[in-house]
């Protein structure tokens, strides 16, 4: 049967259109009761409902009570098409969560297409608003289900938070409750009550603070259109949690500063907000003060920003937030604060992420939860509440316990670390898979070549192998080959294993754990190019001259047999040992020579070699606790492998760009804007060193010049300059060649670049493998491979995952450093790399540790009033009384692990030398 849907739409140009659409009603829509999508006998019992029952959820329940719904005991729920559509329209994160529940067959959630079913459809009544119509459709559908279930002696229960809807439903003879009432009477699952989000009531009313009212969305939109408000994503400063900024291209400096609680007006880090620019007289400057909740719990009570006189030159555009356009709330990991009496139910939760404010939650499980890491979600932030309100989601484990802390850092960085699902495991070949005959025939047989691999010790996922052969044809040409594990042969597109790898994006290496992108059977066994048999590979083979000029390049799919899986140390020993003359060693020597030539050529072109204080932990094999630290050493062989990997990546990039100019997956590194280097140049000037940052080559030359010994300049300064230079760089990103025009890689000084050599641990390499295989005819294309927009979307996700993996890795190192310093007290040499108004930041090269030494606290950590602090910004110097601390100064600090406060375990740095009275601490006994 055909009905018609009419709507009035106002287009962007102001036209009013009448749009008419068809709406067919069917009599063959499945209601789920006869198939196995819903259980025959739902198990959930509830005191309010006498019989077995199915739940029908209203939109507001889904939007606000998602955590309750995700609980495993909530099953046999009917989601109506009307409700699904409204949820999708109102909140896409909630919709995503709902979709993943719907995909899970165990949850027994069924989507009923009620708007097209002839028995549950109704026409809009005169003067009925769309909300009322939707409510009526929901009630009619519930009635329909009640009627269907009546002969099975079961019922359909409507859950809605809308009082009016509830009342109407009861009038019509349906069973309806608010979510809160229903959850309170659930039998057997008391933990559900904690998960209830309290949207309407305010847990706390604090008369001391009253935030300005948020403007309505329509007002915000019209304000943005006229230019009165600016829209942007709020970025809270890492140093000062009461200060943030948004990017705005049409103000001076490109950013608007927002300072203070009232101006921030209940916006949370990463929310999309609307900002009203203040008048020029009210402009302020970013605070030089560092505020950190965990160290200075008292600091957040007195949050008046001191209105110091700021010189006009330093003023930046400032403003205040007038409304929130889109919230970006997510579940946060953290701990409960130990304030208040144990009998209270209202508690304060401190998130691990410093930029998120504290959250007030209500829970009865305080005794068990104190001392645990928990996950909490924000529900709302009422005007009169100092903190946002939220509810408890789940508990992760004890604070300080390594497993729990690992879990926290993976969750906070959105690293997917659940075990691979059955669907993914089903895509794997059997463990005793052998290369089939037809594959052998299709590929080039390179099993006789002197191929070997060089990797860190203990490496099981071997991505790459090399070989070198002197062609001996009189022209002095040699053949060099790079062979990469052929992962794309095992991971076919659009399979569950491919989707999972696409989502994870990269393998994450924590200090003691590795979160794999692909299951271990592939990464450590079938794909890994171990030396114990024939393996499938994707080869890039060059014919080169002896001075490392490429004469010819070719790519092919091959079968190889690695002769040796060496470590860097082993390979170096073989090269240095004159007695060894087997073809693998001869090959290594040849590769080494070529690598040196390639490297010097790259440096001439402007490739940068920057340093980062990388340390590696020696992990006790039993307890996996860190025993000692070890800084990474760079040998010849490390550099050799790196050179050829770079060369392979460059060659592949050129090739796929030629073959697929619209949809090649490439990697670029944009050059940093000159302003990024300001801090670096300033710091160098204090030591009379001039850095030229106009091109990467100039920068490299200046950094090299800084290494020359000069009077008054510490030898380590050049390394420090390199470390600071790393922080000026922008991130390298993946992109789709059809959508951008600038392909350059600043750091490597390469005109075009991609990632090809590590498909086991990076998804971008798998995409490049597929393109390359299609170009040499070894594989077919498919539509997603060639779709520009699809590729750019995947690249954006890969960039995000890559960044998150880096943050997670750094956090893991920080965690292990903490664990390492437990129970120890060590004095160590360090260098000042940053000077602020009330503190200095110190880098300790031996441990790769960086921390803050506050100059307005005494050695016990208590705040002191300092009236002899004199901060001179342009010299990067601060005077404490008569003693000066300047950037690059060498100091001695005492490192300890402070577990006095169980909630805030951290590494403490105390100044030992220079000895500042009242601040510095006594040197520990050596």
């Amino acid at each position, binding site marked *: 049967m055909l009905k*018609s849907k*009419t*709507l*009035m*739409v*106002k287009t962007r140009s*102001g*036209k*009013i259109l*009448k*749009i*008419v659409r068809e709406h067919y009603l069917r009599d063959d829509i499945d209601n789920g009761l006869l198939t196995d999508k819903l259980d025959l006998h739902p198990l959930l019992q509830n005191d309010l409902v006498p019989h077995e029952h199915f739940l029908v959820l209203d939109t507001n329940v889904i939007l606000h009570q998602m955590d309750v719904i995700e609980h495993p005991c909530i099953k046999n729920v009917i989601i109506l098409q009307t409700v699904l559509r409204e949820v999708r329209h109102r909140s896409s994160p909630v919709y995503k969560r709902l979709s993943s529940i719907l995909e899970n067959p165990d949850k027994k959630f069924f989507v009923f297409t009620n708007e097209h079913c002839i028995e549950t459809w109704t026409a*809009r009544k*005169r*003067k*009925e*608003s*769309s909300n009322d119509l939707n409510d009526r459709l929901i009630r009619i559908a519930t009635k329909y289900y009640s009627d269907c279930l009546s002969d099975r002696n079961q019922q359909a229960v409507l859950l809605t938070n809308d009082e009016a809807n509830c009342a109407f439903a009861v009038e019509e003879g349906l069973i309806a409750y608010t979510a809160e009432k229903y959850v309170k009477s659930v039998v057997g699952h008391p933990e559900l009550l904690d998960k209830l989000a309290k949207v309407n009531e305010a847990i706390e009313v604090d008369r001391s603070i009253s935030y300005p009212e948020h403007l309505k969305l*329509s*007002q915000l939109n*019209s*304000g943005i259109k*006229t230019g*009165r408000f600016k829209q942007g994503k709020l970025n809270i400063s890492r140093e000062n949690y009461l200060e943030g900024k948004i990017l705005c291209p049409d103000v001076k400096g490109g950013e608007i500063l927002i300072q203070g609680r009232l101006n921030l007006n209940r916006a949370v880090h990463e929310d999309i907000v609307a900002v009203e620019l203040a008048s020029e007289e009210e402009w302020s400057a970013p605070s030089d003060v560092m505020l950190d909740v965990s160290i200075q719990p008292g600091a957040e009570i007195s949050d008046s920003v001191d209105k110091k006189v700021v010189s006009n030159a330093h003023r930046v555009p400032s403003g205040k937030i007038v409304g929130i356009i889109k919230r970006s709330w997510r579940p946060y990991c953290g701990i409960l604060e130990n304030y208040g009496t144990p009998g209270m139910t209202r508690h304060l939760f401190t998130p691990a992420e410093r930029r998120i404010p504290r959250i007030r939650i209500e829970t009865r499980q305080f005794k068990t939860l104190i001392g645990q890491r928990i996950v909490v979600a924000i529900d709302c932030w009422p005007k009169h509440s100092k903190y946002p309100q939220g509810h408890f989601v789940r508990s992760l484990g004890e604070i300080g316990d390594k497993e729990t802390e690992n879990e926290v850092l993976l969750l906070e960085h959105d690293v997917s670390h659940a075990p691979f699902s059955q669907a993914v495991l089903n895509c794997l070949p059997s463990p005793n898979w052998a290369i089939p005959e037809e594959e052998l025939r299709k590929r080039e047989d390179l099993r006789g070549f002197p191929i070997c691999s060089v990797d860190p010790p203990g490496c099981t996922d071997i991505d790459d192998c090399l070989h070198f052969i002197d062609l001996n044809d009189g022209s002095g040409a040699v053949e060099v080959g790079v062979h990469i594990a052929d992962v794309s042969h095992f991971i076919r597109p659009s399979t569950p294993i491919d989707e999972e790898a696409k989502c994870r994006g990269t393998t994450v290496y924590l200090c003691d754990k590795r979160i794999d992108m692909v299951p271990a059977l592939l990464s450590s066994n079938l794909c890994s190019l171990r030396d114990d048999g024939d393996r499938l590979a994707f080869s890039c083979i060059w014919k080169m001259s002896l001075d490392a000029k490429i004469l010819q390049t070719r790519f092919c799919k091959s079968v190889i047999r690695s002769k040796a899986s060496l470590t860097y140390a082993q390979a170096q020993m073989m090269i240095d040992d004159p007695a060894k003359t087997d073809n693998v060693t001869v090959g290594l020597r040849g590769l080494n020579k070529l690598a040196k030539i390639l490297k010097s050529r790259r440096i001439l072109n402007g490739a940068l070699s920057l340093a980062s204080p990388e340390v590696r932990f020696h992990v006790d094999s039993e307890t996996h606790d860190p025993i000692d630290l070890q800084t990474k050493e760079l040998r010849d062989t490390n550099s050799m492998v790196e050179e050829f990997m770079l060369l392979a990546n460059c060659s592949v990039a050129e090739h796929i760009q030629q073959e697929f100019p619209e949809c090649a997956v490439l990697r670029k590194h944009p050059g940093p804007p000159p302003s990024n280097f300001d801090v670096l140049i300033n710091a160098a000037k204090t030591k009379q060193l001039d850095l030229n940052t106009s091109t990467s080559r100039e920068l490299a030359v200046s950094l090299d010049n800084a290494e020359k010994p000069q009077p008054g300049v510490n030898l380590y300064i050049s390394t420090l300059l390199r470390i600071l230079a790393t922080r000026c760089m922008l991130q390298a990103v993946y992109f789709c060649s059809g959508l951008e025009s600038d392909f350059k890689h600043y750091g490597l000084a390469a005109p075009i670049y991609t990632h090809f050599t590590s498909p086991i641990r990076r998804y971008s390499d798998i995409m490049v493998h597929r393109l390359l295989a299609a170009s040499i005819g070894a594989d077919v294309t498919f539509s997603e491979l060639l779709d520009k927009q699809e590729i750019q979307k995947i690249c954006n996700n890969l960039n995000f995952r890559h960044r998150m993996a880096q943050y997670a890795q750094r956090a893991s190192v920080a965690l292990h450093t903490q664990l390492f310093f437990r129970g120890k007290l060590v004095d160590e040499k360090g260098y000042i790399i940053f000077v602020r108004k009330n503190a200095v930041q110190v880098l300790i090269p031996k441990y790769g540790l960086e921390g803050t030494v506050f100059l307005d606290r005494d050695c016990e950590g208590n705040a002191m009033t300092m009236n002899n602090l004199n901060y001179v910004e342009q010299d990067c110097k601060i005077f404490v009384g008569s003693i000066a601390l300047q950037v690059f100064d060498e100091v001695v600090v005492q490192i300890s692990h402070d577990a006095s406060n169980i909630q805030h375990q951290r590494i403490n740095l105390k100044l030992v030398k220079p000895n500042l009275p009242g601040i510095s601490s006594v040197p520990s006994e050596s």
Partner: protein
Amino acid sequence: MAKAILGDSEKWFIVHGVQDDFRTDGRSCENYRHIELETGILSNTHGSARIRLGSSELLVGVKVELGTPKPQRINEGWLEFHVDCSPNAHPVFQGRGGKELSDNICSMLTRVYRNNTVMDLEALGVIPQKHCWVVHVDVLILECGGNLIDAASIAVKAALYNTGIPNISLTDGDEGEVEINLPDDPEDVKHLKTINCPVLVTLSKIGNRHIVDATDEEECCCSASLVMGVTRRGHTVGVRKMGGGSLDPESVTEMIDSGKKIGRQLHISLDKLLKIEAGMSEDIKQTGYL
């Protein structure tokens, strides 16, 4: 007008018949042919009507849009007419063939509706000087069977009666700007007052007498015709003489008088029909062309 080709004897036959108040299809001089009218057949327009007058068939669609008011009349909206001759009606209308005819009908309609008493244009104003409703009336001629002007005007009145303009609400936006908001319910419309809309009556002079509603053949025999717009009360809102022949003043007054009388009768039956149709339940399926 698509000319039917008549021989001389046929012409004489028609002229003599008219003298005796007998037309070829048995009507008297002042009778209209069988009229079929249906409104609301095109769902994506704001108002529509289909008329079949004998063998002439027209379709009228009304769409309203927001536009800027004319500088001399800042408080009012306006109507805009457009006539299209579909080649379905006659091959000669292909390409730009029907332009002359459509321009003719269009100008007649525009002129009659320009009168202030005909239509309450202030009801179409939204925000003075900024926004107003512009009512686009599009006439589509599907079959030519004579007397297209009358048919067009009847259909236009019916379509305007059927038109529903969305009930917009005005809210104060930023900086004194007024925002226009659409109603939630698409059925929330206000209807135009068509009580004073005129119909055009064409009186064709054949021999010494004049006839109403000439067919194609009769149009070939007529020397001159008078088109007048008549309102429900019998008031004349516009007169125009067409055709190559001449009229003497007495015939003109005679024709105008009978035109008024016929017009009034036409309005009465039309209004009755429109009321009945509006009152019909929405369940009865529109048939349109089926």
